[in-house]
């Protein structure tokens, strides 16, 4: 009996210790196995799920051509940033540019290299699914729950010739934290003052109205089932599933349909040198207003954690491939390729990356 008691006590002690260790250590749980520094034949990356199909195609082609394997884990933008900050990957990937706060928390300067563009479309379920047009104000009012019926004068006014039913509008949004919600809410915050104060911009919001569904497939599924519903999904997803998409009025006053072309066009603005820019509500006259770059992230100085120059060079070569030769794989997969001006800027950023203060490219 004595023995048994001792055993229970010691096991309890072990259990508590294990808990503490696991809590203390979870910030760098991938560190030990995947130390990337030594192996120059494998490049390790982690981050955004949205560009994953594009990246896996490009990385696969790269492997065929150069014999260098890229191991990319699509764990979400937040995870990608965390892993890069913990220096457990060669590059991170994120849909939204890192905030100033996130950058200041990082151990060393990080640069953003755009890899392609994505867009968010507005889709709906109405009898016969007519093509609709929305102004930013009307769109914001619908998602704020201020416009409640499809035959509201504000909607019919900009859609002459379309017969809109006397049907309640059901808003459908993402229930899971998502970069898609981030881009969409970033756009609404820019065009609507009320939206900007509440609910604001984020990956998960306190939505004033509507139903939540998980993932692009959840949102589109719920929209297909609910007459009179409206929601937002990624352009890639809408193209694959041939969903109706509304034309939106951009900053220049033009109504623009969502397409790969109008998405690329959205980047035809004066881009800042560090490329950390929000493209939503773009000033480009034929640009679709709800677009965003998706980024690859690397440290500006690559000589950290005993990295060899060769592996730093291999990472730079890979990213250089993504922004040049890799771009041709974007369109067939439903991603908008970078316009030339953006490629030039990205190239300049890549050239600024150094190893022991000597440029790598």
């Amino acid at each position, binding site marked *: 009996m004595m023995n048994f008691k001792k055993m*229970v006590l010691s*096991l309890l002690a072990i*259990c508590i210790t294990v808990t*503490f260790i696991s809590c203390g250590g979870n910030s760098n749980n991938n560190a030990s196995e995947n130390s990337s520094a030594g192996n120059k034949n494998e490049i390790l990356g982690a981050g955004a799920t949205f560009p994953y199909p594009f990246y896996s195609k490009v990385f696969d082609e790269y492997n065929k051509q150069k014999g260098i394997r890229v191991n990319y884990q699509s764990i979400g933008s937040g995870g990608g940033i965390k892993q890069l900050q913990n220096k457990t990957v060669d590059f991170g990937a994120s849909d939204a540019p890192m905030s100033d706060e996130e950058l200041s928390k990082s151990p060393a300067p990080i640069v953003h290299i755009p890899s392609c563009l994505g867009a968010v479309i507005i889709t709906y379920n109405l009898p016969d699914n007519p093509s609709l047009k929305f102004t930013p104000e009307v769109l914001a009012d619908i998602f704020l729950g201020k416009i409640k019926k499809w035959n509201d004068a504000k909607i019919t006014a900009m859609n002459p010739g379309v017969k809109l039913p006397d049907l309640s509008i059901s808003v459908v949004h993402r229930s899971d*934290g998502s970069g898609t919600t981030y881009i969409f809410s970033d756009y609404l915050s820019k065009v609507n003052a009320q939206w900007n104060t509440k609910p604001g911009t984020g990956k998960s919001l306190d939505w004033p109205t509507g*139903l939540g*569904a*998980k993932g692009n497939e959840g949102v589109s599924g719920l929209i297909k*089932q609910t007459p009179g519903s409206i929601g937002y999904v990624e352009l890639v997803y809408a193209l694959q599933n041939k969903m109706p998409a509304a034309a939106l009025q951009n900053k220049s006053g033009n109504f623009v349909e969502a397409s790969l072309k109008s998405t690329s066009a959205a980047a035809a603005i004066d881009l800042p040198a560090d490329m950390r820019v929000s493209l939503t509500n773009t000033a480009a006259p034929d640009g679709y207003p709800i677009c965003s770059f998706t980024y690859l992230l690397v440290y500006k100085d690559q000589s950290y954690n005993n990295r060899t120059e060769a592996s730093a060079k291999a990472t730079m070569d890979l990213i250089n491939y993504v922004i040049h030769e890799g771009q041709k794989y974007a369109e067939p997969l439903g991603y908008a390729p970078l316009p030339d001006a953006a490629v030039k800027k990205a190239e300049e950023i890549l050239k600024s990356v150094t190893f022991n203060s000597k440029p790598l490219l």
Partner: protein
Amino acid sequence: MNEIAFQAKRINLKEKVFKKTLTLSAITVVVILLAIFFTLLINSMPSIKALGGKFFYDKTWDPVADEYGALPFLVGTLLTSFLALIISTPFSIAVAIFLGEYYKKGVVAEIFKNVIDLLAGIPSVIYGFWGLFVLVPIVQTIELKLNLPPYGVGIFTSSVILAIMILPFSVSLSRQVISMVPSHLKEAAYSLGATRFEVITKIIIPYTKSGLFAGLLLALGRALGETMAVTMLIGNTHQIPTGIFSPGNTMASVIANEFSEATGKIYTSALIEMGLFLFVVVTIINILGKQVIKRFTL
């Protein structure tokens, strides 16, 4: 002589090793449970410190403004679970009486028992899909008739699915306690001229009361923690539900939805605190259930 002593020693050793192995595996289970509890507790400390009691009564869940109140999800969880329990109770008791009293043995009984056990084995995502494609359109027509917005998803839809999902859990226990009612009690009642209906309502149900209650408690514990099917059918809104047809959210489904992309210390920690809370609630309900069963068997 020596041979026998040696044999005895070997058997003794075998016995010891066997016993140690059993004890060890039993303790491992306890250790894992405690480890989960402590992990949740430690990781929710930042949120407990920052939010305090506000976490339980605040109505706003706004990750943008860093405000976390779990009240809408607590209400959603309790509402769906208890509604599911209310819907499933008549069915589960009826089925339990049917299988425990009328058809104890035989082919029919076996088929029914297996079908009910199968219900417990269906993955919850399948329930979710079935709900989305079959139940949602039905609820939509009901809502249109009642002049409500035709969401189809919401508290009611998820409760119906939950009611089906928890049925096997209460039935299996209730069936056992009903079949365990001593026959001399029933025979005594029959000899006094009681009808079968009277035997069931006056003898079996009062006698098995606590066992039936324990079965329902176990089912409730299961309903509280169900995630996938509910996430697909509840509508996922952060408001306190205003009626049984309005959309809502549960604690488990908020965690499932938001954890993977949660950034910020308090945000992550608040989600973990919700998990801790759910863990505690389900544990209490399970312990209560076990206590009631114990009293019944004594």
